[in-house]
């Protein structure tokens, strides 16, 4: 079979800390002081280092790795959005990139207008969009509202429409970032089905996801990235295993290169798990350990109604969410710019034996997440202290979570009722 993508030592370097552009003053001072003082501490960081691979026609590759492993950077380079610092890649065939659904959607425009605009942005010809228009509308299931401005849509409808356009892209090679993480479960399934059809139609796909279930169903090959390097390629099962091993050890993250930070007033720049107020070193804890999650949040502008959220997942899906860090009123008033640590205790004891991951979100009330870090932290809960009361926390029981009961016995019911 012929090779459709060949990458040779692709590398991408970013400058950490200080952004590489600046205000005029910085540039001018740098320009004049270059010869004098050259030991400017610029930390260089390889988001991608010497990544080489070949992908053959019809292969559906799942690209997995932790946050910051370089998955999105690789997709962005292959999509021509950003240039590699070094290395080369050859792609043979018509390419479509889907790094986000609904790119270019404008709230004031109607569904119909947005379909044409978004289609054009994704690289579809007008005639092609016209031909598929009815199909797109039907897939989205919002026929009735097609001539309504999308600002009146519910977020579900918005995502449906956006995805419907994307699902009808026809290209020989597709790069798909984690776009399925949106929408309701029912629609996600429909999308997965559609993607499955796409995958079976002999197209070559690179698919980024944190959802190993999706990778498993869709892909026939896996790539595992770690700290910018392509560590392994191989079967999906094997790659998923490597990914889980890697996840095990994430008790803290830092989001330091500007690539991953959205341009919003409040943003999460780091997070860690703590036990008794100290950073957790081993990702293994006892059922009864008091664990807290700390978020490091940068406030760039004091704006009301920004809020952070933490979601706790087990291997089957989302278990519970901890809402609204900013719900404490005094936090929302005129906060000076700076970096804040937020801490919240996990309810304890609640989590059973097993592996848990935490997604972090930052966003505006009523607008939805503007920053989303999937699987930012992970935690392995074990029963280390043996006690019959902990049976409910055993992995052998069917419950998802457990609580230590505080039963009271009320002797005389009759008396209480009266």
């Amino acid at each position: 079979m012929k090779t459709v993508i060949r990458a040779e030592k692709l590398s991408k370097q970013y400058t950490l800390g200080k952004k590489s552009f600046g205000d005029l003053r910085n540039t001018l001072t740098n320009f004049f002081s270059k010869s004098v003082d050259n030991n400017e501490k610029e930390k260089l960081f390889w988001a991608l280092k010497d990544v080489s691979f070949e992908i053959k026609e019809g292969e559906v590759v799942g690209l997995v790795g932790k946050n910051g492993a370089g998955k999105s950077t690789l997709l962005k380079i292959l999509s021509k959005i950003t240039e590699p610092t070094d290395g080369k890649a050859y792609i043979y065939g018509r390419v479509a990139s889907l790094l986000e659904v609904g790119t270019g959607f404008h709230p004031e425009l109607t569904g119909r207008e947005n379909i044409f605009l978004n289609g054009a942005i994704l690289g579809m010809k007008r005639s092609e969009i016209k031909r598929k228009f009815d199909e797109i509308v039907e897939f989205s299931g919002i026929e009735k509202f097609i001539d309504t401005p999308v600002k009146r849509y519910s977020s579900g409808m918005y995502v449906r429409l956006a995805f419907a356009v994307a699902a009808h892209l026809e290209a020989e090679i597709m790069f798909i970032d984690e776009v399925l993480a949106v929408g309701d479960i029912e629609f996600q399934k429909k999308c997965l089905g559609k993607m499955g059809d796409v995958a079976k139609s002999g197209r070559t796909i690179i698919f980024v996801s944190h959802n190993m279930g999706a990778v498993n169903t869709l892909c026939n090959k896996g790539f595992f990235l770690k700290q910018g390097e392509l560590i392994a390629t191989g079967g999906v099962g094997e790659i998923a295993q490597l990914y889980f091993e890697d996840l095990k050890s994430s008790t803290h993250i830092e989001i330091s290169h500007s690539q991953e930070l959205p341009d919003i007033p409040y943003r999460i720049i780091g997070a860690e798990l703590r036990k008794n107020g100290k950073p957790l070193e081993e990702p293994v804890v006892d059922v009864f350990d008091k664990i807290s999650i700390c978020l490091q949040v940068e406030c760039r502008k004091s704006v009301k109604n920004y809020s952070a959220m933490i979601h706790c997942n087990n291997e089957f899906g989302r278990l519970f969410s901890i809402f609204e860090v900013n719900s404490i009123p005094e936090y929302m008033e005129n906060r000076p710019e700076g970096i804040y640590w937020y801490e919240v205790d996990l309810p304890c004891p609640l989590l059973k034996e097993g592996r848990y991951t935490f997604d972090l979100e930052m966003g505006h009330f009523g607008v939805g997440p503007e920053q989303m870090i999937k699987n930012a932290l992970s935690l392995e809960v074990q029963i280390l202290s043996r006690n019959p009361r902990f049976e409910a926390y055993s992995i052998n029981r069917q419950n998802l979570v457990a609580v230590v009961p505080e039963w009271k016995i009320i002797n005389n019911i009759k008396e209480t009722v009266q």
Partner: protein
Amino acid sequence: MEIRIIEKSKPWRWIDIKELLEYRELLLLLTLRDIKIKYAYTMVGVAWAVINPLFTLLILTFVFGTVAKIQVLGVPHAIFTLSGLLAWNYISTVMQEGGNSIVGAQNMISKIYFPRIIIPLTKVLGGLIDFIVTFLFLLILLPFYGFIPSSNIVYFPIFTLLIILTGSSIAIWLSALTIRFRDFQYVTPFIVRVGMYLTPIAYPASLVPEKFKTIFSINPLVGVIEGTRWCFIGGDFPLQELIFSVMTVLFLMFSGVLFFRNAERVIVDIL
């Protein structure tokens, strides 16, 4: 078969015309989106395109014609000013909107590839709506004042082209500068405000004292504005100023595109 080669590009490149043509539909749709949002969803809609030059005209005519009593070669002051505003309004709008356009489109830029120069170009095309409306306004005003335009009006299409080139070359320069230095978001409005006084919109360039003439004519818009006005009201052909303007605009266009293409390589990394 399409082959895409991905590598670090050379720092100085000219525009890929073939690729730009492939993306013409996107350019058109983005322009239409801008226009729709600007006009279709405001309360008085396209009326804004008339209100804006109308009020500027009223104020300028009042200040320069009625208060300062500037003599304008026996032409009604309103006609004189509007023929200057026609070019100025277009160029200044394109400068401002084009300059800031990249920042406004950063989400799109970081999610999908397309020739980046499309972004300022949408403003160049979009501004034509206002240009046409102002032109029609001028056509209505001519009989209103009983003024018969000069036969030079047949050359107006050539000057339209020059106006568009001037607007786009400055817009491309400013958007490239804005990519590198965000300060230009604030510099551009300043240039526009100062430029309004240094450009002979409501006064004839002939009123500028001889010793300032050379410095005054460094502004490439002088030739463009005086030339456009010559189309409508005749008089001496501003040959010298025009030659200077055309040369400057061509140079700005050439260097602007090169600089833009240079800056666009890092656009996603620094936005």
